[in-house]
């Protein structure tokens, strides 16, 4: 069977991390989110994948190429017109000529486990939808069932209906395409609308799963999900570890990376390729460090995600933070975690423990300190000795 993955979206709610990286490419434990889904398919023997790409498609194509490294065959379809309201149904309609018979449909920006795909394949029904329980159903499409049949689906309901939500993972047949065309013509672009159209006449089977599925909705979800994914991290060293380095727990060190003496790393921690860490750096659990990252002496990093090409100078403290690709941080930077009210899309959201979220390619001067829960955009320049107490927009110069 073929699988279609929708990976054309931008993921605006994850800004600043999606300013130049599409959401499916956000790294969780040093692997793009999309990789989890592809892996889950491959492990279930599904190797023929059509991927709808759009926003920053080059990042996706350059990473996965033809898929042979993941033992799958990927064919790309470019969703050229990113119409303002283009939704999942519109994206799926792009592949109508590529797909015959039954097929699986997956969102490219969710973490999906092999077990979940297994559940879906093992169940019966022409149309199937994977549903799962959620503590916060109001963020998702909520599903009402009668037995195992889907009777209603409501996007982000304001009143409580049920805790069962749609994962956006389906088994369909090509007969869905004429329905999609009709729905699109009526000016609706979401798959939920398509589903609502077919529910009255066709049985859609709900496949309940308790296997891992998660969606990065807000930028700080990157940290939670990273911590979960890192539990599977193994001890493996392809780089150079100097004498006098302490490694505890599971620590993965990529090729060409150098860990200098006096460094203390407590796993689970994953370190990418070509990094230079230490001397005398402390890295505490649930930290992911991308490729080509440098961390200078006497710096402490805890429960954080440092993306590719980040440079951290000496004497800094970074906890519960996400640092975007290529950001440079000069000496004695301080981002302490604390309970925080983060301002996002004009609303304050409560996060239990959060340090700072910094977008890509920003440059932070020396001795900068940031209040918990602040978001600093991409391409910002912060002068030395600044104290940051609020969010900072992209491309801002703070002097």
């Amino acid at each position: 069977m073929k699988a279609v993955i929708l990976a054309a979206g931008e993921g605006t709610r994850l800004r600043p991390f999606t300013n130049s990286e599409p959401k499916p490419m956000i790294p969780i434990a040093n692997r793009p989110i999309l990789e989890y889904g592809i892996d889950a398919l491959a492990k279930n023997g599904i190797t023929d994948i059509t991927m709808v790409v759009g926003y920053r498609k080059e990042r996706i194509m350059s990473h996965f190429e033809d898929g042979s490294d993941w033992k799958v065959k990927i064919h790309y379809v470019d969703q050229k017109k990113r119409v303002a309201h283009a939704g999942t149904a519109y994206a799926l309609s792009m592949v109508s000529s590529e797909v015959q018979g039954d097929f699986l449909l997956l969102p490219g920006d969710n973490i999906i486990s092999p077990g979940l795909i297994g559940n879906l394949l093992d169940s019966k029904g022409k149309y199937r939808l994977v549903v799962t329980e959620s503590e916060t159903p109001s963020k998702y499409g909520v599903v009402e069932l009668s037995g195992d049949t889907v009777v209603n689906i409501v996007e982000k309901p304001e009143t409580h209906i049920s805790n069962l939500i749609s994962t956006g993972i389906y088994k369909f047949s090509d007969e869905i395409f004429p329905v999609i065309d009709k729905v699109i013509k009526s000016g609706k672009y979401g798959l939920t609308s398509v589903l609502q159209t077919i529910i009255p006449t066709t049985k859609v089977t709900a496949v309940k799963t308790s296997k891992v599925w998660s969606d990065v909705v807000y930028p700080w979800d990157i940290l939670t999900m990273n911590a979960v994914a890192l539990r599977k991290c193994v001890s493996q060293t392809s780089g150079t570890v100097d004498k006098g380095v302490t490694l505890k727990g599971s620590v993965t060190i990529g090729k060409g990376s150098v860990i200098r003496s006096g460094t203390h790393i407590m796993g689970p921690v994953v370190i990418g390729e070509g990094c230079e860490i230490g001397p005398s750096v402390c890295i505490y659990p649930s930290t992911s460090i991308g490729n080509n990252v440098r961390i200078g002496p006497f710096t402490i990093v805890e429960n954080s995600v440092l993306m590719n090409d980040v440079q951290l100078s000496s004497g800094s403290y970074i906890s519960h933070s996400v640092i975007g690709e290529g950001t440079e941080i000069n000496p004695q930077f301080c981002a302490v975690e604390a309970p925080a009210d983060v301002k996002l899309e004009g609303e304050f959201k409560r996060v239990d423990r959060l340090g700072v979220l910094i977008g890509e390619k920003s440059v932070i001067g020396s001795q900068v300190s940031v209040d918990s829960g602040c978001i600093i955009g991409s391409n910002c320049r912060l002068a030395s000795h600044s104290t940051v107490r609020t969010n900072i927009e992209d491309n801002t110069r703070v002097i």
Partner: protein
Amino acid sequence: MCGIIGYTGNRQARDVILAGLRRLEYRGYDSAGIAIGNGSLNVFKDKGDLDHLVKIIPEMRGKFGIGHTRWATHGKPMKNNSHPMVDCNGEIALVHNGIIENNVSLREELMKKGHVFRSETDTEVVVHLLEEYYDGDLEVAMRKTLARLQGSYAVAAMHQKENGKIVGARNISPLVVGLGKRENFLASDVPAILEYTDRMIYLLDGEIITLTKDTVRITDFKGKSIKRNWQKVEMTLEGAEKGGYEHFMLKEIFEQPNSIRDTILGSNLNAESGYSFDLKPDTVKIIACGTSYHAGYVGKYMMEELARTPTTVELASEYRFSSDTSQAPLIIGISQSGETTDTLSAIKTAKKRGFSTLGIVNIVGSTMTREADSVFYTRAGLEVGVAATKTYITQLIAMLSISIKMGVAKEHLGIDDARYLTQEMRKLPKHVRSVLDQSDAIFDLAQEISGARSMFFLGRNMNFPVALEGALKMKEISYIHAEGYPGGELKHGPLALVTEETPVIAIAVKDQTYEKMLGNIGEVSARGAMVIAIGTEGDRELEKYADHVIYIPEVPPLFTPILTSVVLQLLAYHTANILGCEIDKPRHLAKSVTVE
């Protein structure tokens, strides 16, 4: 230059050979053909590229055969001039890459003996010589034939009576042998057969190879057996698929951040080396062709600035004929494939003159890696697009790394300077990524210039060779006439050609030439030319002078060529794509030039 391939084993040879030719197409695509043996000899060939051949080729059964994809040197691209060539009786088939220099005299001699020639090529003499000397053993006939040949060649031949046997030989042009299980391969280049095996033997000059599905025998031209172990090839075929991109060239442009990272990692420029290098030449001479020449030209500025070492750059095809001067420079030869005949000959000339040589090469195991005294590998991976992009960028990284090493060794750079520069180098992948993020904006500019019949590229100092490279890229893939000039030289002649119909692309980054470049931009825009400038991020002043500006991130001036080059690659790519050109296979060109 051409690509050749041979197969013997249990598979249908036709399919193996066609798949292999597909990966060799970068070496030429004027015409293609294959010969298959199954008791009789079947040859099918035609003018045109492989797609054309695949469309019209009939089913051909047989388990050994040879194939060829051609880049014409002697004789126009036409069916008769395509390989495989056959002898008068249609029993022997031969494919050849290279040039037989004494083909005219051999042809006369053979015609006198009654051989009938059907093509205009130099190659055909070889197959008639084989026929002349054949007495039941193709290997013996090959040995006698090679003794008569002058020039460069890699050949593969088969005889219909010798079932399952392929005989090949090499002199100057490359040839590798791939070892399989109950099957064996022969090809111009590793990727052609990498799908089937990673165990390779690189044939050396003056060696003959005889393959059956179970045996591999290497002998020299005198018939003495040679023992050689196979090597495991680490390259993967991954790079050989387009992975969603419209063209290999675009895919390779977008791969550059990773290629840069890998090359820096491999450069040994780190604290582990203790920054102690033994590289102290008094002078340097860089030798290369085409795009590599431009990388070398940028390198000249890097070496002079970082190592204060007088450096000259010469085209390889010219160096060979230059006079020996009293100084003994370090010779740096740059060749992506490591097989570029002109560059190899220049290295040989330099060695004869007693100079030490350093090769900058992308392909591990290639001829130059054996010829040069030492080698710097650019780790760009397999490049398929004929227009060099990621290999060129990694050559710039190589020049930069070597300059830093030389600067430290000659004590012009402190170790702290070297550390600073290497740290800045490590930021290059992300800077290149931000240039790539502007691909859509560059596409819009390409639309503006795609109607032009001629354009100028201006740059000064180390961005002058970048202007040359920008013009070369534009010429080779979009077929628009383009010239690179140093900004200051314009008023000494070419300014006469600047009108409102000649767009000018001007590199005006913030370095010591910035003010002067603004003046040059003024000169051309006063003649009505549309100016696209490449400037440093944050430079709003430039917008007053130029019609359009593309910005690159701020980096040390010495690093700017790496970023400005990427802008020009994208500009050439989008222009060619808008014009509907065959980007990965520009007309008359081929990737590695293994002829003189």
